[in-house]
């Protein structure tokens, strides 16, 4: 299962990277979202899969599955949500101000 997950993660990273490299702002944002999906799965897989019970003391006596990666992912999900939301609004502002969401056209428009 772990090997299969790693391949899936590799595919997700590939897709995410490809999207990040595109010219369209929305695709770039989608790319970051896919990348964070991949990272969440990566952290989870690193902790080992199906090694124990759900980490709830009330449900079983153990052994439990590793709880630490889960806690980290929980934090990561929320933060990636925050950044995605921020990026979306940023894209919206950029489009409103410059009338374009093509990164190629946007370059050099700032007052350097």
């Amino acid at each position, binding site marked *: *299962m772990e*090997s*299969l997950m*790693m*391949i*899936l*993660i*590799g*595919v*997700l*990273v*590939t*897709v995410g*990277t490809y*999207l*990040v*490299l595109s*010219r369209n702002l*929305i*695709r770039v944002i*989608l790319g970051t*979202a*896919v990348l964070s*999906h*991949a990272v969440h*799965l990566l952290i*989870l*897989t*690193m902790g080992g*899969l*199906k*090694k*124990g019970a759900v*980490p*709830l*003391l009330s449900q079983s006596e153990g052994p*439990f*599955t590793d*709880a*630490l990666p*889960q806690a980290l992912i*929980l*934090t990561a*999900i*929320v933060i990636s949500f*925050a*950044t995605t*939301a*921020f990026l*979306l*609004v*940023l894209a*919206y*502002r950029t489009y*409103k*101000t410059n009338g374009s969401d*093509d*990164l*190629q056209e946007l*370059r050099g428009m700032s007052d350097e």
Partner: protein
Amino acid sequence: MTIEIAIILIPFIMAALIPLFNRRLQKSFIGWVVLVIPVSLFLILTTYIPRIAKGETFSHTYWWIPSFNINFTTYLDGLSLIFSLLITGVGSLVILYSIFYLSIKESLHHFYCYLLLFMGAMLGVVFSDNLMVLYAFWELTSVSSFLLIAFWHHRKASRAGARKSMTITVSGGVAMLVGFLMLYAMSGTLSIREIIGNVDEISEQTLFIPALVLVLLGAFTKSAQFPFHIWLPDAMEAPTPVSAYLHSATMVKAGIYLVARFTPVFGGEVVWFWAVTGVGLLTLFWGAFNAVRQSDLKAILAFSTVSQLGLIMSLLGLGSVAVHLGYSTSSVIYTQATFAALFHLINHSTFKGALFMMVGIVDHEIGTRDIRRLGGLMSILPFTFTIALIGCFSMAGLPPFNGFLSKEMFFAATVSITNLDIFSIASIGILVPVIAWIASVFTFIYCAIIVSKTFLGKIKPDILEKNPHEAPVGMLISPFILIGLVIAIFFFPNTLGAYILKPAMSSVYPTFPATAEMTPHIYAWHGFKPELFMTIGVILVGLLLYRYMKHWIKIYRLFPQKWTLNAIYERVITSSENISESITNRYMNGNLMHYFIYIYVSFVVIVAGTFLTLEAFSWTPSLDAPVENYELLLVFIMIFASCALIFAKSRITAVLLNGVLGYAIAFFFVIFRAPDLALTQLVVESVTTALYLICFKYLAELKPEKTSKRVKLSNGIISILVGSTVTLIGLAVINYEKFESISVYFEDSYKLAGGKNIVNTILGDFRAFDTMLEVVVLLIAGLGIYTLIKLKAAKKGDADT
């Protein structure tokens, strides 16, 4: 807190206080307040003179970073005392002078702040025993010098001069730092005294000569030795009190200090002897030679300072022979060169300080420093003329002024060195007195130019129109004190010798016993010796050459303008600026895609490269958990959805595919025993999708990518490389079990944190700070979003700009 540390810190504290009381103080008053500092420091330091003369030294350590051997160790001995007296003494006079020189319309608080900063840094340099502390103060003098040169920063020349001096002195300083680190590597200590104690051990090592060269680079750049002297004439853009203080009496002497301080360490080396003597003599000649052709009074003095610094430097080089020979009755004669160097150091500060102040008065009262426009000022500025006359006579080496004494000793030292038969002196040693003599002739000529072109002859009519008059008394006090010293030292040189120079000599030659030969009696008249004939020759030839200057001045035009050091410096600076700009423009081209490509390519190269070279790949599928059919299905759904995402034509499709990925991950969380994650993921994914859809109302529809096939292909390859790197590393790492998992600790959550949901206790208790900062991130993002939306509303009117 000891007195020595306090002496270093007081100027800094005062510099920090100036902005505070600046507003409450009348502007004309600030200089007087600042004046108190150097005067009192000078008086405190004079109390050390008798004790230091008896051979005492004062050392105190303030433990700063003992684990790195960096301690704030002050060490006050004869050598430090000379310099610290010059720094505070000349500093007091310069501040007194500047009170009258600078108009109260200038930003005086900045000026005095920088000046105090410099004073503190300079005292730090000469008091530090620790190399790192010395280096820090050393660079601080460069920084404060930069600020002072650029004081009139509205002038382009000031800024250029400041940058030049900064570039040259700081690069020398960095070289010196490397030299210091080499010394540390060899000796294991950063204390100068301990290094001197271990000389025999470290002089055998291979790093010894490189360290010597690097330390010398620092000294040469700071003391404006050829070919690094080019910054000093440009630094004359600073206000004249600054030139008098930093660029003649103190900062440029820091290099001299360093060479004197390190003579016990490096002095025995032939490289040291020839580098210090040779560069010194070359600088002596080149400075004097170039001073003659300058037309700006300050430029003449700048080149003359370069030249005089070369003189002191070459004397220190000659004196280092004694270290090589070791103490004996025959070798002690060569220490006299060092004695002369220290003596001339003081003399130079007196007459050069006075001359700079004289030029400042001329500039202040007449409005120009150009000798082609000056002349006949003797009758208008009689007191200033006296200063110039005495200062120039002393500089040219004429009696009855102190410059005569040290110049004679210099000639004597150059003559006596020719008798030596080491370091291949026998073959080329005769050049030493010859160059010294020629340079002195030029020194005589430019001294004659300063006096005659400014004060003798006829007054130019356009000057008379302005109705010039003698400077106010306040401006004359400082130069007259210095001139008084010029004369006093001539008549009582041995008092200076016994109290100030003798203890400094024992700092330069710590292994030598303090015999009478170490502090020779200074005579104004010592019979018909070669040095006397050399002086007479200088005067005669100098007068002759000055008289017929019209005929030989053409030789200066022989040098091609293109190959002057300044032109080379300018070319190097401009071309390096252009090159770096063109390189930067090439890769920082504003294209986000390219920036990402740099990141990804370096990620692949560095991570995958290391991975492959270390052959770290391992894969043990046997340890994997079994795969169920429905899991396989989920995996395929995700792979399909993600691949479809790339080709999605409409943004709605794209967002829905992203949603498929998110919900599929939630399924995985369920399967992999993470119910909290699954819940959160579901909520967040729904909200995110909604957010996308809301934003789409305002955004344009996805357009097909306009990128060429080639770019698409290369992007595809980069993506695949990144993806496979992650997969390969993931496969290799997944079964890595070099140490126990730390998660077992959290399984005790009920006892430790009173919660039965382990994930929750980790978030809310064990790693609560993480969660708190996570909330902060949310808050910041929320604020950012709010601002971005509000910004639009506020700027609606001029949003198109």
